[in-house]
């Protein structure tokens, strides 16, 4: 690695990002960084996040300055060993800037979502990562595969990661049939069967957590581990008003305050984020699908299926992550799991720790994904 000069570029978060605003550097020049260390805060038109270093070494040069608008793949900083000459770093930077074409970087040439037809309908998913045990990520109510935009790339270094869209959501078919929990679990199982994924690490957020847990309980052989992020299914309480407002909102003005409930910091909800959710909700059948699911699974503003106790049946690693300031599902639900589960409640995070504190979530998940089988 000595002598190598490494690029720390603007990452591509999600499918549509084309550029980001550098807000602030989190490390000084000369700092030693490890893979995964957060080095800079960046804002896109959709959201704010922290860039994690993809490489290890010394941060030799901060090329971009706060306030700069950098295209995806553009040069943020240079990482190299301390004994690499400044002149060589200058040359690297100059050559990069001269030849860089926005839109053609390797970050830009990311994977594209794919579709698979199963009995439940057509399911859309995004696959990242070349090798390693498969991980399946299940978003929450009203969500889509983009919700995992900070998590999937990190996990993809060592795993094949599938961010799957449930029926009624994202680009999957909007017909949810009965809209009950069983039909959602069936759909995920059909997905695993169709892609011949025998045994996967199941990860679910909110409703997706309940689906993941139910699948693990129903077919224990299919789950290698279970990660529940602010998951449904652990207590009766749920912010039913949020569900109603999300479903009935027809305009930016109506939807924005609802979406703000998903985060500890309401500033996370940009105009673009609201517009993206509106675009989804305006597709024929979406509001009806969401209504079915909400009535079936969270009817009357309450959770009816509780699986916390049953998790003890599982003989696989179970990770539970929650945000202390969750306004949708109380953080206190995180404790309603067997003692054997690994539970973390993160300060400063709301209902979406996988977006608000992705660095922490990624680190915790790496541990779970890496852990040995409890029984073989």
């Amino acid at each position, binding site marked *: 690695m000595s002598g190598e000069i490494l690029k720390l570029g603007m990452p591509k978060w999600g499918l549509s990002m084309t550029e980001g605003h550098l807000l602030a550097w989190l490390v000084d020049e000369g700092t030693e960084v490890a893979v995964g260390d957060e080095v800079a805060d960046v804002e896109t*038109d959709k959201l704010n996040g922290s860039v994690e270093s993809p490489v290890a070494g010394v941060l030799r040069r901060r090329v971009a300055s706060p306030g700069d*608008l950098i295209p995806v793949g553009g040069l943020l900083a240079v990482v190299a060993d301390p004994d690499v000459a400044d002149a060589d770093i200058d040359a690297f930077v100059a050559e990069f800037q001269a030849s860089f074409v926005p839109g053609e970087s390797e970050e830009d040439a990311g994977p594209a*979502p794919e*579709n698979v037809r199963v009995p439940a309908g057509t399911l*859309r998913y995004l696959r990242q990562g070349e090798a390693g045990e498969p991980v399946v990520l299940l978003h929450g109510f009203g969500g889509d595969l983009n919700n995992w935009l900070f998590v999937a790339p990190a996990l993809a270094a060592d795993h094949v990661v599938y961010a799957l869209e449930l029926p009624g959501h994202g*680009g999957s078919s*909007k017909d949810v049939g009965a809209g009950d929990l069983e039909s959602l679990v069936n759909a995920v199982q059909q997905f695993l069967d169709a892609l011949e994924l025998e045994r996967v690490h199941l990860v679910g957020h909110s409703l997706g957590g309940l689906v993941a847990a139910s699948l693990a309980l129903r077919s224990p052989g299919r789950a290698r581990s279970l990660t529940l992020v602010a998951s449904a299914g652990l207590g009766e309480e749920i912010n039913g008003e949020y569900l109603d407002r999300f479903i009935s909102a*027809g*305009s*930016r*003005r109506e939807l924005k305050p609802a979406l703000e409930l998903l985060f500890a910091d309401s500033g996370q909800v940009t*105009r*673009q984020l609201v*517009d993206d959710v509106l*675009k989804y909700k*305006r*597709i*024929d*059948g979406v509001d009806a699908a969401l209504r079915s699911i909400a009535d079936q699974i969270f009817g009357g503003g309450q959770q009816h299926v509780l699986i916390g106790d049953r998790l003890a049946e599982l003989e696989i690693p179970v990770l539970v992550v929650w945000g202390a300031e969750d306004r949708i599902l109380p953080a206190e639900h995180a404790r309603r799991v067997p003692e054997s589960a690994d539970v973390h409640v993160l300060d400063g995070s709301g209902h979406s720790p996988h977006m608000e504190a992705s660095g922490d979530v990624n680190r915790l998940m790496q541990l779970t994904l890496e852990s040995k089988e409890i029984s073989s």
Partner: protein
Amino acid sequence: MARTITYQQAINEALAQEMERDPTVVLFGEDVSGGMGSPGEEDAWGGVLGVTKGLYPRFPDRVLDTPISESAYIGAAAGAAAAGLRPVAELMFVDFLGVCFDQIFNQAAKFRYMFGGNARTPIVIRTMWGAGIRAASQHSQALHPIFTHIPGLKVVAPSTPYDAKGLLIQAIRDDDPVIFLEHKVLYGTEGEVPEEQYTIPFGEANFVREGDDVTIVALGRMALVAQQAAAELDGEGISCEIIDPRTTSPLDLDSILESVASTGHLIVVDEANPRCGFAADIVAQVAQAAFGDLKAAPRMVTPPHSPVPFSPVLEDAYVPSPDQIAAAVREVSGAARARPA
């Protein structure tokens, strides 16, 4: 699932999907299929620029070529709507408005009101507008101010394929008369459009670009031209917020006011002629509602008070350009900075 298609394809898809879904939707206009009664091919044109190709073979009972008699068939659209159909009538070029305006503004627009609420006239009139293809004075106009002026009409002018499909589906499902303006220069532009049917409500503007220094309101093709100006201005450190109203009636004034409250500067760029135009309407409404938020006088960027010329050099000088927009922005932001604090 979204994929890349053209503005023209998006319109065709909206029509096909709605006609499939609702048997009361009928489509007619001059040459919308083309070749009816003629000895050669059926569906020969699919509209003069091919926008409606393929619809007649799919829906032979509900797609009709019309004689060249706008006042009869636009009036027929109004009568058919009152009797229970959902007609989508094509006025080939908006410039032909003159020969059928009565049926639009005195009949269709006013039935519900004049009949005390006891009528619904769910028609869509699709029509091409805008300059840029050297079609000269009588085939290049921007007449949305005239329609916007008429109570009882709704006026829609999408600038992207995504907006075109969602707004047209909304227009067909809407129970009021809708004038759906398709900018002829935009037909070939591409964008991500979901395969599924979806709607976009009227009266919701699109924030094409977010920015802090100047609010630019731009409709139709001008939304794209404004983006070119904004890219240039970015390099000068001027950050432009571009708002595409998408519908002029109803109008999302709130979004414009929200933006002006933040930027303090307003430019309206529009392809319609300046007198009693759309730009004047927006500026007046903002001045009336938010005078205190303005740090400088608003500016309108429009063509001159002349018909659309033919010669390419002249037409290019007629249509507002990125340079003209950028100059207006610099003037407005410069003026603010020049004023004593």
